């Protein structure tokens, strides 16, 4: 491997490598996918893979975690987005095809996609 010749070399290496330990670093955004049996049978794993691919493609810094069933099984797959102290937004009946729009509008533009929202949790 080429040697680091300067402070700038070290910093660019650090930036490159930071994504590698993303799961262990603090992030401002957590995306939570309902992964109970109900979620999985409704396609939650495919939705989660679509989210991971979209985050990767757009180089967005966010944690993706899974949770068990929260009881709203008819609306599965459920995807929640939690950003800082903002209310936690729950989207329902999500398919992989809907993922790019959620990422684009919610995470990049900062607008909640109201028509797909099934719940908001404050605090």
């Amino acid at each position, binding site marked *: *491997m*080429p*040697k*680091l*010749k*300067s*402070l700038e*070399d*070290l*910093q660019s*290496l*650090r930036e*490159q*490598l*930071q*994504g*590698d*330990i*993303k*799961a*262990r*670093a603090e*992030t401002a955004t*957590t995306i*939570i*996918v309902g*992964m*109970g*049996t109900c979620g*999985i049978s409704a396609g939650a*794993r495919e939705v*989660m*893979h679509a989210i*991971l691919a979209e*985050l*990767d493609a757009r180089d967005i810094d966010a*944690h*993706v*975690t*899974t*949770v*068990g069933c929260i009881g709203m099984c008819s609306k599965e797959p459920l995807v929640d987005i939690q950003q800082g102290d903002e209310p936690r937004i729950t989207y329902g009946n999500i398919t992989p095809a809907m993922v790019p729009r959620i990422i684009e509008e919610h995470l990049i533009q900062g607008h909640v996609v109201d028509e797909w929202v099934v719940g908001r949790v404050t605090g």
Partner: protein
Amino acid sequence: MSTSKAEQYRVDVLVCTCPACTKAGAPEMEQALKSEVGRRNLADEVRVVETGSRGFCSMGPIVIIQPEGILYCQVGAADVPEVVEETLVKGRVVERLTYKEPETHKAVPYYDQIPFYGKQMRVVLRNCGLINPMSIEEYVAVGGYQALAKALTVMTPEEVIAEVKKSGLRGRGGAGFPTGRKWGFARSAPGDVKYIVANGDEGDPGAFMDRSLMEGDPHAILEGMTIGAYAIGAHEGHIYVRDEYPLALRNLNAAIEQAREYGLLGQDILGSGFDFEIKITRGAGAFVCGEETALMASIEGRAGNPRPRPPFPAQSGLWGKPTNINNAKTWANIPLIIDRGADWFSQIGTETSKGTMIFSLVGKVNNTGLVEVPMGITLRELIFDIGGGIQDGKQFKAVQTGGPSGGCIPADLLDLPVDYEHLKDAGSIMGSGGMIVMDEGTCMVDVARYFLDFLKEESCGKCTPCREGIRQMLAILTRITEGEGEMADLAQLETLAHVVQDASLCGLGQTAPNPVLSTLRYFRDEYVAHIEDKKCPAGVCRALIEYTILEDACTGCGLCRRKCPQEAISGEKKKLHVIDQEKCIKCGVCFDVCKFDAVAVR
């Protein structure tokens, strides 16, 4: 360096590979985890990462799941399918594997909510258990080598020394000498060739602070040493590690190799024109080699014997050249000070003791392990909040700080703030961070005897007060524990202790009497009970105790009779048994096996 985008994983499963977890079955569990992750087609999103110790050694094998921060204790290979199915796939906590609060049995799934971690301040240990110590890339990703780059590019050596001085950092290996001042001496010493040394010769029984740091975050030590070398004007560094630390040696060697490949060691580091190399010397494991002049003799290939100071190593150290020696933990503090600044560092701790201290908390405490706390925390917080109190609901009796040559501090000093001065005033030392908790079942005379027995073996024998003084004190203590003591022995012990303290050449002899003096100071009653009443109040010293069977509690089950190796117990079935005191060797087997608490020790 690779230009491709870093692989991104949704989940990192951190598996502790420290010797304690390894012994508890971590490698088999990790293997099972990797194959289960593969079998469930999760390998693209879940990564298994080997890390150093997170310090919670009593609960291993430890697994931490990130980003959630879920901590599982005592995870075996058989638990793996459930962890994968429930937590990695479905996002549910497997409650039976979580830490339970000892009193309420309440499950605490997240590691930052476990009281063991709650009162800690893990800054020097920040990467231990979080990054893979075999990967320089992970160290760089969490900000590693930024402090070195800062020192080399925007600071002069004098500015580095000034910053370390201003931080108030004191040596973490024993005497607590101000690190910045020590560096200043080495910098101003005349000569072109200078050396720096990291002391990783951790010889205290039951201590593993340096080992865990060298295993868990080796690059932090290398980075600190390189900054120190730049400040002092050294181009060669040595790390002295005992050979009985194979994992520390492996990780340090790998770290040195990787740092060389990236040009963070070697010639013209980061284009600054500064050259620095690090070599490792493996020690054979002698307590005295933790003393700096003995350590240097050992690196030079001579017997590890101390020599008088002056000349101090800063004037004449390794091969007669100016040398700066710091403990491995001290070196690991340096990148933090340079990166975050002396002001940040000095706001942690007390007036005279800045920053944090790493302790290995062991003995009769519930949560044994490695802890890092701000200086000034009380012993009570350390032992009861972080340590979770005393095992089996017994009473706290004393805590020994500073390794075998530290003192024993009693219960009425539990609110003592832990810093260099307070420990010294209490008759103990900070030392390197050993902390042994003792309960009501510990005999303090026997403890003093035990440590002197250790020190007798470890004294190099070069100077008479230490060699003979320890031996004589040990003989008196042994006599007292055997019931042959006299009251005049106590004055004799004190006299001997002061001679050894005052007239020994090195720190080993100078501190060796601490266990004797501190137990005489705080637990004189116990000595008197041994001598005058011929009793060991803790029920430890065999010559002074008697096992008897209690008439009310004995069911006549016969278990003790069958287990007694001396056939000293007799009795008919379902009738009271008795111990023949003539035959009894006081091994305690009857006491241990009795299911009805019918055997008493007095």
